[in-house]
């Protein structure tokens, strides 16, 4: 990507108080200082530093990457803001990058809108913006436009972020939930449920100490490698909220096929299993932030798996199941115990069981 060297044409504003007040949302100098100090300084790029109301792209440059534009948005309200393995900033950047990448798009530009509760520490915002900047840089993505709003205490929980992203899909890459065919293989790139378990632990209300870290990571690099090795991949999805079970149900429904997975082949960390046992939760429904589910035609499954395993984000990749011609829309699991059960969509959220 041709990134023009950033020449700072004006000195950046600075915030000299420790916390955000409503004046930082008033549209005046305080707001400009907040944006400069926290976001412009961290994101450090030409488009943003111009402080125009929009970022502008050269169409020819975009078109060089492929023949279709991908466009997505996601909001982040995670509590707590910092958790083992990441923070809301890293999550907001990875989440939108991954939503682009699973469509086969190369993520290029992000926006960042922040809704900030008055009283939030400026240092905390700097830390989060720094984390966003690092994550974006590592993924070769720029955060080129944004917005901040400050709301009264209680009107939001410290900080909500929304990131919107655009990316470009290479010619010839066609992925869709409706494209799964009987015989296709279901692959995942690693251990499931880490993010969901890490967040539940980090909230601290169950006084469980675990070493579980969120798997939060940008997945474009892995997906590029995978698509290179297995160009016939039918579909990719990141199993975030609702976990693996939800994604499989969406595929089975959209493609009007059945899917059977094998519990013994489904990779879940021992600590996550134990955590779920204690609380009566099911790891199949826990959120992931650095995982993909791939539906791959049988003749490319081996190459796809090998490619994923060779990538640092896929060392624990595995083939967990198969698409078959059984009852359309049904997802089942062969249990470690030798039985079979249905894996349905959750009705609401998972609630810990009483006893």
């Amino acid at each position, binding site marked *: 990507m041709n990134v023009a060297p950033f020449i700072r044409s004006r000195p950046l504003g600075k915030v000299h108080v420790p916390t955000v007040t409503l004046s930082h949302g008033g549209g005046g100098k305080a707001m400009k200082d907040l944006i400069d100090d926290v976001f412009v300084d961290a994101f450090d790029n030409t488009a943003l530093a111009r402080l125009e109301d929009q970022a502008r792209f050269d169409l020819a440059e975009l078109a060089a990457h492929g023949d279709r534009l991908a466009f997505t948005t996601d909001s982040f309200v995670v509590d707590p803001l910092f958790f083992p393995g990441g923070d809301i900033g890293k999550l907001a950047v990875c989440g939108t990058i991954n939503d682009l990448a699973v469509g086969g798009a190369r993520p290029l530009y992000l926006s960042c809108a922040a809704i900030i509760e008055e009283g939030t520490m400026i240092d905390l915002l700097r830390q989060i913006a720094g984390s966003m900047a690092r994550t974006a840089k590592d993924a070769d993505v720029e955060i080129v436009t944004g917005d901040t709003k400050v709301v009264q205490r209680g009107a939001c929980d410290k900080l909500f972020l929304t990131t919107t992203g655009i990316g470009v899909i290479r010619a010839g890459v066609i992925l869709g939930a409706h494209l799964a065919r009987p015989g296709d293989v279901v692959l995942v790139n690693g251990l499931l449920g880490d993010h969901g378990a890490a967040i539940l632990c980090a909230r601290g*209300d169950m006084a469980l100490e675990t070493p579980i870290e969120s798997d939060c990571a940008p997945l474009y690099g892995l997906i590029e490698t995978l698509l290179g090795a297995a160009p016939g991949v039918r579909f990719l999805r990141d199993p975030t909220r609702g976990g693996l079970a939800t994604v499989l149900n969406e595929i089975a429904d959209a493609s009007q096929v059945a899917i059977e997975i094998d519990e013994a082949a489904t990779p879940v960390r021992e600590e996550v299993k134990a955590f779920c*046992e204690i609380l*009566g939760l099911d790891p199949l429904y826990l959120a992931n932030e650095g995982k993909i589910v791939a539906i791959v035609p049988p003749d490319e499954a081996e190459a796809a798996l090998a490619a994923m395993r060779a990538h640092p984000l896929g060392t624990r990749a595995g083939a967990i199941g198969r698409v078959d011609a059984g009852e359309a829309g049904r997802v*089942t699991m062969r249990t470690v115990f030798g039985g*079979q*059960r249905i894996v349905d969509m959750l009705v609401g959220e998972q609630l810990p069981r009483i006893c």
Partner: protein
Amino acid sequence: MKYLDEFRDGAKAAILVAEIESLIATMDVPRDRPLHIMEVCGGHTHSIFRFGIEGMLPKQIELVHGPGCPVCVLPMGRVDDCVNIAERPEVIFATFGDAMRVPGSRKSLMQAKADGADVRMVYSPLDALAIARKNPAREVVFFGLGFETTMPSTALTILQAEGEQVANFSVFCNHITIVPTIKAILDSPDLKLDGFLGPGHVSMVIGTAPYEFIANFYRKPMVVAGFEPLDILQSIWMVLKQIKEGRADVENQYARVVPDKGNAAALYAVSRVYELREFFEWRGLGSIDHSGVKLRDEYAQFDAERKFAIPNLKIADPKSCQCGEVLKGVIKPWQCKVFGTACTPEMPLGALMVSSEGACAAYYQYGGVRQHAAAE
């Protein structure tokens, strides 16, 4: 995972299933009338579905999913009482997670929370007591719910609150007791049961003696069972063995957790804090004598029923709902008129569709693959 994987070993399961098959082959089970074994406890129901145990059993055995899900059998009127308490501005209402979704006639606790009530999910009654200490200006009410498994922890929390004189803590007591309910099921004229898997964690508290009447008077085998899938298979085999030998005994498969005499300290706390109610209303089963407990007069200050004016409404179960027949094993969940149509986990009509431990919700969610197939 240590102490879990050992009890989920597929190879051992195959051996046990083969043992069950060869045992039943020597028994004279009529083709049109399989043996009905009831697992009393919702925890068993959950394991049976989660590991797909029903599909592994020979056709001559049918599992009947009993009333042992405390969330499911909670009557609508009690949920309305909870919502009433929770909606008082001074109250913080603390509850176990899976009680949040149980529908009342107006709303569930989850809806009440969305409408502004301060409802908090806790993992133990001690968490609720901690909230009370932290919020001395508010009234903290813990929703005491469950069988003898959770009864002692609520009792011990009340004793601790008494010791520390935490005046703003109380319990809305809906604890229930399993034995009178098993008896009510055994007395039912349309009973079709041949044996029981006894509730493991209830028995850890009360021991095995309270079940003797099932063997002695009703001549039904009862095996107190653990919750891992191998436990359940072994317990089924033990029930079959009794039927085959013409015995009716109370046996303890779960001896690694359940002492025959129960847990004396827990029982002491229970008897100190609670006394039996004359009767308690169950969803799907109606009123059952001596099936619930309330706080003794000495602990009145911790009793939410005395602290707050509670409407104590009685709301009849919906007429179309056949939970009672499912609970007694007269019909299978999917044979109910409203299963999956008017009654779904999103909009549960009957008790058994409410919690993931309820038989109907478990069928709906995990699917008894064989039974669904048979129904189609």
